[in-house]
């Protein structure tokens, strides 16, 4: 039985009719057309559906949409401030941390949550790799992703504060 629920996605209120079994991923992509969040394995194994729920990285393929009412959802579409990219997005571009691109949005969301949780710390290679342990890049282009994470982290210190 479908029910109308209210979702707060990227600071915007959405009213959407969902079935009790709908995942957040399904609602984002199929109901709201927010296609930045990717569907990969659909079983919480690959990370490309990663979004932020109340600022924490989660697999949107594993959350029931109805369980995300009253919570703040951020997708990759919500990172850029108009035309200005989020520092994490900018760092991924500059480091060339994209091959086929399918994992990129999930990587960026995981990185975003990770960097928000470590203050001004700049992770070393191992820490950056551990941070994205829940995201697979099937092109195996990890080194540049790690470079991008570290670049974004180091910039944040130069800038003195982090956006969002």
């Amino acid at each position, binding site marked *: 039985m479908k*029910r109308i629920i209210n979702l707060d996605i990227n600071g915007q209120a959405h009213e959407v009719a969902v079935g009790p*079994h709908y*995942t957040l991923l399904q609602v984002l992509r199929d109901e709201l057309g927010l296609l930045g969040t990717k569907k990969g394995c659909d*079983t*919480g194994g690959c990370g490309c559906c990663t979004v932020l729920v109340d600022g924490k*990285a989660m697999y949107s393929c*594993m959350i029931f949409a109805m*369980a995300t009412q009253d919570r703040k959802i951020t997708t990759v579409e919500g990172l850029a401030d108009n035309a200005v990219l989020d520092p994490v997005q900018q760092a991924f571009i500059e480091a060339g941390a994209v091959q086929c691109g399918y994992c990129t949005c999930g990587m960026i969301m995981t990185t975003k949550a990770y960097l928000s949780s470590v203050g001004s710390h700049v992770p070393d290679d191992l820490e950056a790799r551990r941070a994205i*342990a*829940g995201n697979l890049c099937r092109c195996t282009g990890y080194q540049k992703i790690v470079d991008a994470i570290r670049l974004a982290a180091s910039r944040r210190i130069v800038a003195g504060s982090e956006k969002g």
Partner: protein
Amino acid sequence: MPSAAVKEFLQPSSPQEVVELLVKYRERALVVGGGTFLHGIIARGLLGQMDVLIDLQKVGLSYVKYEHDTLCIGATTTFAELAASERVQNSPELGAVLDALCYPPAQIRNMATVAGCVASATPLFDLPVALMALDGAVRAAGPKGSREIGLHKFYLDYFEHVLERTELITEILVLRQPSRSASAFLKLETNANDLALLNVAVRITVDKKGTCRDARVVVGGGIGKVPVRAVSCEDVLKGQYPTAALLKESGNVVAFDIHPVSDYRTSAKYRSTVAKVFVRRALLRALDRLGMQLDEPS
């Protein structure tokens, strides 16, 4: 993607309400904690007919506290919340719990709940093995009231435990260990999002002189239907001063207690070999937490 047959998604606001719903719907209802295990099951087509999902987010069971000498972990406490709690961070005796919580990736740590992990009853999960090394217990609410069941008696088979359909785990309980106790956990996995090929948790209690007074060794992951207590390993340690040779001997006798299986992920022989090494290394890690450093035997 979950089954379209589900008719209702309910969000009760107390454990009592959950129990009432379970009494009403019985095997047609499923309790959802973080949902990570459930979605994995659904995606593999292993979930039977369910009419109702009962979401636990609003029942008020996310907390970590001490009740006298018992650590009470609320059922819906996430891995991340438990790992961040000061008590888990700073108690050598809870080291195994902290170790076990560090293996899954951030997304799972943010979603998976402690009781959900315990209730899933898969012998391949990590946290139950760590909790068993601490003689942890489950507190469950049901229509007849509340009861406590030790984890060593909790599991029956793959995906099966002793609770009735109408019971809900409200808390995981861990008794405060005697002073000079420490625990540790190790997992063999092929990638960061993998189920254990093998996992081992140990707890050791020593007296003032460093002699082992009590020990627990628990092995899980591909060694049977439920995690197994390796009493032979424990017996080697008790009453003895831990030396590198003693730890090696304790690891070597693990073969008496476990019966590893061969599957597509690895062989029984490899699991047996790793179990010996992991018991020894987990003991080393626990002793290190007590400030007792031994050299690894060559």
